């Protein structure tokens, strides 16, 4: 198969991370590139080989962020780019507001208070926190281990609720507001697998004649065999 079986029903965790990496995040550049860029682009186009800045273009962004950087002036870039710059010591990542001890404490409170709903954590909270703990731990003001503990608490609190919610599986629909992508993705095979089968059972119990087997049964075109009522032919022992 052109797509391996384990990718046919769901995303891998790496793919979820990939999606999250496309989201914007704020950084403080540690270098200034903006003026250089302006001189070259405002002057009549220079075609000297040394001037490579005009040649740098990206295909998923309208601007080339690397030419827009001013040291310590915050700007927004895709997470993957922020991580690459960070790795090169060219920026600090501005940790999002929600990822502080104070704010997480409020989320924990909410999750504890309401047993039947999820707090509105960002849809990428699990992935983003994990990435930043790993790659930008020196950009946090709060102690990372305390943050990590709270993320773990949130994770467990929500898992308990998810488990409870799963007893409401049915053949119609579910509403799962504020569930993050990681949580959705890990639950997907179970929820989809079970609900599909519940649907099949329910559907089979309905009397939609057009889908009854045997209705389009015509083993031999030139014989027109009559069909009898199913119910009449059943014998209950």
């Amino acid at each position, binding site marked *: 198969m052109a*797509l*391996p*079986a384990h990718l046919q029903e769901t995303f891998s965790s790496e793919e979820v*991370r*990939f999606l999250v990496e496309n989201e914007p995040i704020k950084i403080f550049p540690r270098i200034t590139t903006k003026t250089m860029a302006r001189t070259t682009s405002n002057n009549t186009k220079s075609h000297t080989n040394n001037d490579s800045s005009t040649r740098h273009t990206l295909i998923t962004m309208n601007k080339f962020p690397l030419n827009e950087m001013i040291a310590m002036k915050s700007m927004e870039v895709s997470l993957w780019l922020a991580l690459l710059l960070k790795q*090169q010591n060219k920026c600090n990542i501005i940790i999002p507001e929600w990822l502080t001890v104070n704010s997480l404490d409020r989320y924990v409170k909410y999750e504890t208070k309401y047993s039947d709903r999820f707090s509105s954590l960002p849809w990428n909270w699990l992935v983003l926190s994990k990435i930043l703990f790993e790659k930008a731990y020196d950009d946090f003001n709060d102690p990372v281990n305390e943050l990590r503990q709270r993320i773990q608490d949130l994770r467990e609190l929500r898992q308990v609720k998810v488990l409870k919610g799963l007893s409401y599986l049915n053949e119609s629909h579910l509403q799962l507001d504020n569930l993050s992508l990681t949580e959705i993705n890990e639950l997907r095979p179970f929820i989809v697998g079970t609900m599909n089968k519940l649907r099949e059972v329910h559907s089979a119990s309905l009397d939609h004649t057009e889908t009854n087997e045997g209705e389009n049964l015509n*083993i031999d075109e030139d*014989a027109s065999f009559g069909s009898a009522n199913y119910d009449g032919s059943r014998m209950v022992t």
Partner: protein
Amino acid sequence: MYGDLANKLVIEAKRTQQLNGKPNKATKLPMYNDEIVRNIITEVNQLKQNAEFLKENEVMSQSENKVVKCQYFVNSLCLERNKRCLLAYQRLRCDALDSMIWENNGMDSSNQDSNDLSHEEQEYLREYADLITDLKVGALSDIDISGSLTPPSDVFIDVRVLKDAGEIQTEYGVFNLIKDSQFFVRQSDVERLIQQGYLQKI
């Protein structure tokens, strides 16, 4: 009973499916069961003769209509069933052959013992490999469609040189790998050197 052999074949297919069900494991096929397939085809021919016999009879004896009809039905259903089992078996194996081609980056040399494949399957494998090769050079040539399905992460990495390795040439110029120096390089350029113990990922 008619259809029993076909069942055996499908149970075998089920086993193959289970063997290949685990992620990140190379697809493999057991020996093509030529014997059962041929025996089912023999059974099919038997059923076909029965059908012809019944058809002649139907015309001749109107009085035994329902008997002939019942016999005819049973016969047709057995034929149909055998066909379905044969096709399901072959289709499962073809899907597995497809997987092998993709896993091996479009080549038909895999760890599959080609003696375990029927002649038709060997031919199919070659033809599918050719098809993928053609696909790679067309409009999608820049994409490398048989490449990795794991998202790129850490395209570039920091490495430390563990033992002198001389100069290497990359797209980014020449790197002189002297012990204890550090470089920022494209991971794919140095994969081999890491494996061989010259470099260490930091």
